[in-house]
């Protein structure tokens, strides 16, 4: 049987040592009437080569993004140095668990300490945890932390520009907490309009930049508005953009969260990714998740251990700051290796390439009759809403026929943008050839619409 090493002889010797005759006898604790009779309705096992063939067939039913893909909307196709795969894939990292025994886990713990340092540096914050599940759940946990830090306030203002999955996750986490979620609308320029929404009842403001429509928000003004109202400000970030764009820490935000997928993690149909969570040092005792701290052993040697564990569920149980236990450590390690491989110069280069491709595509697409950029060319980092003369679904079918993957029909999430709005994303992996092919594919649609 695969993966079971004991032989029949081993089993016989072990059963004798235990003092029973058969394997079935080991289950005497389960009443006979509760035992399942017969085999489960699951197909018979396969050999490794048979499974490999099956996997290849299943994989062939999926179209990959490698031939050109303009989908983003929260998940982006980026390059990672292949050294990331080799190092993160080491069995010593892959097959260990949560570092409860620090002496036997210094590898993982040191890597987390460095990860926390890099996340704090990237976001401009003072302290980061050792990762969350993903960006959406990190944002929800940030709101829970904000509510705990500002007891008595029960309103959460969330920008409509925050990713819809994140908004939905926040609503789900808060459903029974008595906190009210209020949505801040987007203006005609695609930026959040706070109006008079922030008041002395507001515990948290959650914004995202670039937002889901690709528009760069005025973070400094938002953070200042929250501060004036006495609310905790939470910024949802796109880590790659922080190679070029101002950090939430410098803008005055209290908390930075985000999805780490762009830092060397494949899109892989949506997961696993990891979440970033960084804040001011003063909030550390209210922070969710694992935190690694530096300390010393009996001989004064530097070492690392999980710390502030009294916040956590295995100690504090019902009063814990979060229920999180196993999170996404191995993917966070990928992110750490990616950040260390990039360094400040590499990250900036990637961000500049993203921007350059986006600006090139914007110019070329805008030149097509009937097509226009909803929020203008200067508003975006690597993603923009293109208003098409025909339904976005029709545009995507044409792109699909050309052997590429089109953009996202953003009207599905923002009906107010209409059926013709298409959200297109560009990264350092998008080639000029792909953009030119996109433009060539769209041109006849423009002409056809004009004739009609």
């Amino acid at each position, binding site marked *: 049987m695969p*993966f079971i090493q004991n032989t029949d002889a081993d089993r016989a010797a072990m059963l004798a040592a235990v003092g029973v005759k058969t394997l079935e006898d080991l289950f005497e604790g389960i009443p006979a009437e509760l035992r399942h009779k017969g085999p489960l309705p699951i197909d018979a096992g396969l050999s490794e080569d048979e499974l490999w063939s099956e996997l290849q067939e299943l994989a062939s039913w999926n179209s990959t993004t490698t031939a050109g893909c303009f989908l983003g909307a929260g998940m982006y196709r980026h390059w990672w140095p292949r*050294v990331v795969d080799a190092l993160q894939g*080491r069995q010593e990292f892959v*097959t260990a668990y949560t570092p409860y025994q620090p002496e036997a886990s210094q590898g993982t713990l040191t890597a987390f300490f460095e990860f926390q340092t890099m996340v704090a540096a990237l976001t401009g914050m003072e302290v980061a945890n050792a990762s969350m599940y993903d960006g959406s759940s990190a944002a929800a946990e940030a709101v829970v932390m904000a509510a705990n830090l500002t007891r008595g306030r029960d309103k959460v203002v969330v920008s409509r520009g925050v990713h819809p999955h994140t908004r939905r996750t926040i609503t789900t986490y808060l459903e029974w907490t008595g906190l009210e979620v209020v949505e801040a609308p987007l203006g005609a320029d695609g930026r959040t309009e706070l109006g008079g929404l922030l008041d002395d009842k507001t515990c948290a403001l959650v914004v995202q930049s670039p937002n889901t429509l690709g528009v760069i928000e005025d973070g400094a003004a938002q953070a200042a508005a929250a501060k004036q109202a006495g609310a905790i400000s939470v910024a949802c970030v796109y880590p790659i953009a922080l190679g070029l764009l101002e950090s939430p820490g410098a803008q005055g935000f209290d908390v930075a969260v985000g999805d780490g997928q762009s830092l060397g993690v494949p899109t*892989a149909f*949506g997961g696993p990714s990891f979440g970033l969570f960084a804040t001011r040092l003063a909030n550390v005792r209210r922070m969710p998740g694992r935190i690694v701290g530096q300390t010393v052993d009996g001989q004064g040697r530097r070492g690392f251990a999980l710390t502030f564990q009294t916040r956590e569920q295995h100690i504090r149980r*019902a009063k814990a700051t979060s229920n999180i236990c196993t999170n996404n450590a191995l993917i966070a390690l990928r992110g750490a290796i990616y950040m260390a*491989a990039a360094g400040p110069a590499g990250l900036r280069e990637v961000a500049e*390439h993203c921007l350059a*491709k986006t600006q090139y595509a914007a110019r070329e697409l805008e030149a097509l009759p009937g097509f226009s950029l909803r929020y203008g060319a200067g508003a975006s980092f690597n993603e923009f809403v293109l208003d098409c003369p025909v339904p976005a679904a029709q545009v995507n079918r044409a792109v699909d026929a050309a052997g590429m993957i089109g953009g996202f029909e953003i009207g599905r999430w923002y009906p107010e943008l209409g059926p013709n709005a298409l959200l297109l994303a560009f990264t350092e992996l998008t080639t000029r050839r792909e953009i030119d092919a996109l433009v060539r594919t769209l041109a006849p649609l423009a002409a056809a619409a004009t004739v009609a």
Partner: protein
Amino acid sequence: MNKDLLLYEKSQPGRRTLRLGRLDVPAADLSALPAGALRRTPPDLPELGELELVRHYVRLSKKNVSIADSFYPLGSCTMKYNPVLNEAATAIPGFNAIHPLQDSGRVQGALAVMKRVADALAAVTGLPGVTLHPAAGAQGELTALLVAHRHFVETGQKQRKMVLIPDSAHGTNPASASIAGLQAVEVASGPDGLVDLDDLAAKLGEDTAVFMITNPSTLGLFETKIAKISEMVHAAGGLVYMDGANLNAILGVARPADFGVDMMHINLHKTFSTPHGGGGPGAGPICVTQELERYLPSPRVVEEEGGLRLDYDTPYSIGMLRGWAGNFGVLLRAYCYIRRLGAEGLLRVAQNAVLNANYLRVKLRGAFHVPYDRMCMHEFVCNTKNQREQGIHAVDVAKRLIDLGHHPMTIYFPLVVSEAMMIEPTETEAKETLDAFVADMLLIAEEAKHEPEKLHAAPVTTPVGRLDEGRAVKDPVLCYTCSH
């Protein structure tokens, strides 16, 4: 040469590993960005060439004890072998380079993997409603409690707010109850280590929402009266939730639906062998009865004429607990595992896991006290009662085990046993590995009598000795650059 430097201590200005090729479009026009958008100071990330980067992480990896190099009997965590092929599967471009917003017609392979995993979990548990959405076990628990809460509100039973939880349960159980707007109430264990039915009966009532039970329990014991317990909970109008952390012991042997379970989560990183990764990623699918299925999170994989698709339009759903459909890469590994084993293999998993655990129990019970010394399931709990006079604690045994080349068992859990040492060998370990572990545990028992200082001093073979964890809280250093 100091081989223990951190990335930041090795960093040299001007170095880097990631370099892109020449830009094939005009350079970015930074002046086009909104005023104030640009970062004023670059992020203080380390700067390393590729070789130093490789050396750094290879050296770090060697400071870990892992399943790949050592026996890892960490109770309740099911540290079984993680097949290498399953890792290779996730690197296939057709699984790796796909975007969650692609048209469903272009990702039928990914959706088929998800559907097949869900079907297999339904078969194992007997519960037909499956969601693969939750990111880990604790999120699965939370999902189920949100489902229960919604169910009671929808059926006009708002007053049901109490979640009864045995005192031996994982800490995530009460923590999840709090977030779900429910109130945790502890139920005592009886002298046999099982749920005290009198205490349960006293606490059941019109305010009961859910009874959460870990079965087999964290003591490695099957709740023999589980059918009766379910009947009591159902009679009181409550739902039975099973924490599936220990499902490995009963794969193919018994289906939770058959003993009255209404909802449960499954830790794919335990029972279905997806790697633990130093603390995730996991996946915590939940399985529920048909009645509760409509409340499951969004999106659902649905089958229609023309194929499978992700349905985000789910009016009764509790919502989302994370972005996208689930940890697909983890689900894919679990799929590989299920396909390799098949129905017969899954049953063999349970049988051999239980055999290995009982073998260790009978071999160790002479030297270490086993408070509930009867046939166990996949794990058992012993303690240092016999070593108390020598001043030996569970932590001393654990640290000495590290020096002897094993990862320690889980210690100080469950809380109902003092000085607990929870041992779960899993089915993938060979008899000679178990024998070597037994020999070392017996050696430790002898050392406890004659050389207790050796245990107190352990570990001495590791990169660092016992760490001053108090100092890490009192004088927190949580970030390298923030303290320099």
